[in-house]
């Protein structure tokens, strides 16, 4: 092969790579710019909001953050959201890891029936069952309060997707795992806790993020269950800024900006777990 065509091939490769980076960058900007806009608009002077919506703010004003935090109890809503979302995620993992293990790795006749039963939940349009659900749970609400009672539908609601993802993942693990474990003298508890769970961490991470985001942003159940101001979560707190007279944009966008921080933090923490392990494998390939 002549050196000239070699140079051309390298140039072509470089061009291709360059083009790819440009496209990836373009996509990244299309994601980042609107998000930056959200933060920017929250600190923008409200009068300027409609006049120069997309430019850089001419003056910066953080007072709206103080205002939503103090006057509109966004802090209280944040705490409610954090408690509810974390408890849901933890309880959901406990239930779905055990169930997935039994479904995916253990041998019994009705495992697929149970899986199918749990998966029906993926297909139920949530809004349709709210009223009967609420009626069913009234005794619970009256006994433990709406903030605790809402955990029941939240955790149950996350089970289908969690079991679906975790059991799919566990099924993809090779059969040799159990064989090796048994040769090493593991009992079933050790097999579950020491071997299967650590191996399923990528799936656990996906499920954690998905469930957290789902509950963190859930509005409809919260709307019906958490009617009292003191109980409300962030998506409900956000409603406060829209009313008959229009929307208070600075307050809304400031609250949105506050609300994404925990989700992003969680992703950043889990991403290491998620992607470190996985890319180490494929880098050689």
């Amino acid at each position, binding site marked *: 092969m002549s050196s000239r065509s070699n140079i051309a091939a390298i140039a072509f490769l470089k061009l291709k790579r360059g083009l790819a980076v440009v496209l990836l960058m373009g996509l990244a900007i299309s994601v980042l710019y609107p998000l930056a806009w959200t933060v920017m608009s929250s600190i923008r002077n409200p009068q300027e909001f409609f006049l120069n919506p997309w430019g850089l703010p001419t003056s910066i004003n953080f007072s709206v953050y103080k205002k939503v935090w103090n006057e509109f109890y966004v802090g209280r809503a944040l705490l409610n959201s954090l408690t509810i979302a974390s408890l849901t995620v933890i309880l959901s993992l406990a239930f779905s890891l055990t169930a997935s293990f039994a479904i995916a790795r253990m041998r019994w006749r009705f495992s697929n029936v149970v899986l199918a039963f749990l998966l029906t939940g993926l297909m139920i349009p949530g809004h349709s069952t709210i009223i009967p659900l609420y009626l069913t749970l009234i005794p619970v609400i009256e006994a433990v309060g709406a903030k605790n009672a809402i955990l029941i539908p939240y955790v149950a609601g996350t089970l289908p997707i969690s079991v679906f993802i975790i059991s799919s993942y566990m099924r993809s693990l090779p059969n040799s795992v*159990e064989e090796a474990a048994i040769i090493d003298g593991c009992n079933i508890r050790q097999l579950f806790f020491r071997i299967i769970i650590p191996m399923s961490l990528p799936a656990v991470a996906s499920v954690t993020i998905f469930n957290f985001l789902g509950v963190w942003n859930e509005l409809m159940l919260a709307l019906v269950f958490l009617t009292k101001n003191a109980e409300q979560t962030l998506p409900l707190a956000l409603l406060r800024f829209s009313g008959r007279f229009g929307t208070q944009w600075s307050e809304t966008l400031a609250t949105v900006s506050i609300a994404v921080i925990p989700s992003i933090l969680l992703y950043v923490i889990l991403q290491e777990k998620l992607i470190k392990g996985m890319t180490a*494998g494929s880098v050689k390939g």
Partner: protein
Amino acid sequence: MQKMLSNKWVILAFVAPAVLLYAMVVPYPLLKSIQYSFYRWNIIGTAQFVGFQNYVRIFTSDYVFTTALKNTALFTIGSIVLQIPLAFILAVSLTKVTRLNKFFKSVYFLPCTISGAAVSLLWQFIYHPNMGIINAVLKSLGLGGWARTWLAEPDFALWAVVISISWQWFGYHMVIFLTSLSTISPEIFEAAEVDGATGWKKVWYITYPLMKPFIKISMILITTSSIKAFDNVYVLTGEGPANSSTVLALHMYNRAFLQLQYGYGAALAVILLILCVVLSGVLNKVFGTKNAEY
């Protein structure tokens, strides 16, 4: 080993908590909803049994239902077409670790950390006729004639929602695919290279079949969530203009909660449920339940 893995008590202890909790919350209200679908009920008053009348009305005189059904189908197809290929290509191109790739992975995931309602508020401004960025860009490119009142265009309003929802979720599916790529052992690729497979050929013949189960997961997630789509449509277009962007779940919510025809809404919900079950079944058939093995 066989004995250990089929110990009935262990299975019971592992499965029962999830199943019991689930059974407490999901099937009973669902059955109740099915029951209500045969009633005329405004939520607060007394319910009145009307047989199949709600269903008959849905199929004979509900002019919004047809639009909602068609839109739900378009919504599902649109969301799949916009998200899956993009997420797949991104995941494959981003498997190589460089500093920049890590940045991309994080950035693409960002939008799905925000609630659907907030994303829709944001997109309201992107599509805004006077201050929106789309029209601003068109004008700066000298294409001012293409500027539209995007959300008030009956032909575009639904797609406006599909685009915004795809913007929100493509990164999530990219992460699912990245996770699945991590399960493919590098030896397979090495073997393939020895056989002469390179570049996208390798992706098509090796990566794609191995990722099929995860593509199925994504497809089912998008399909079921599209059929149930609510928040984004509600906030972005509120089913308008003149019902042109309505979808089944929104139509159901409007009838059940805002127009106080709960029984009618429940009948719509039952139809929605049947649709979800059928479509998930179809997807399962198409993609097979068995994972590719090498």
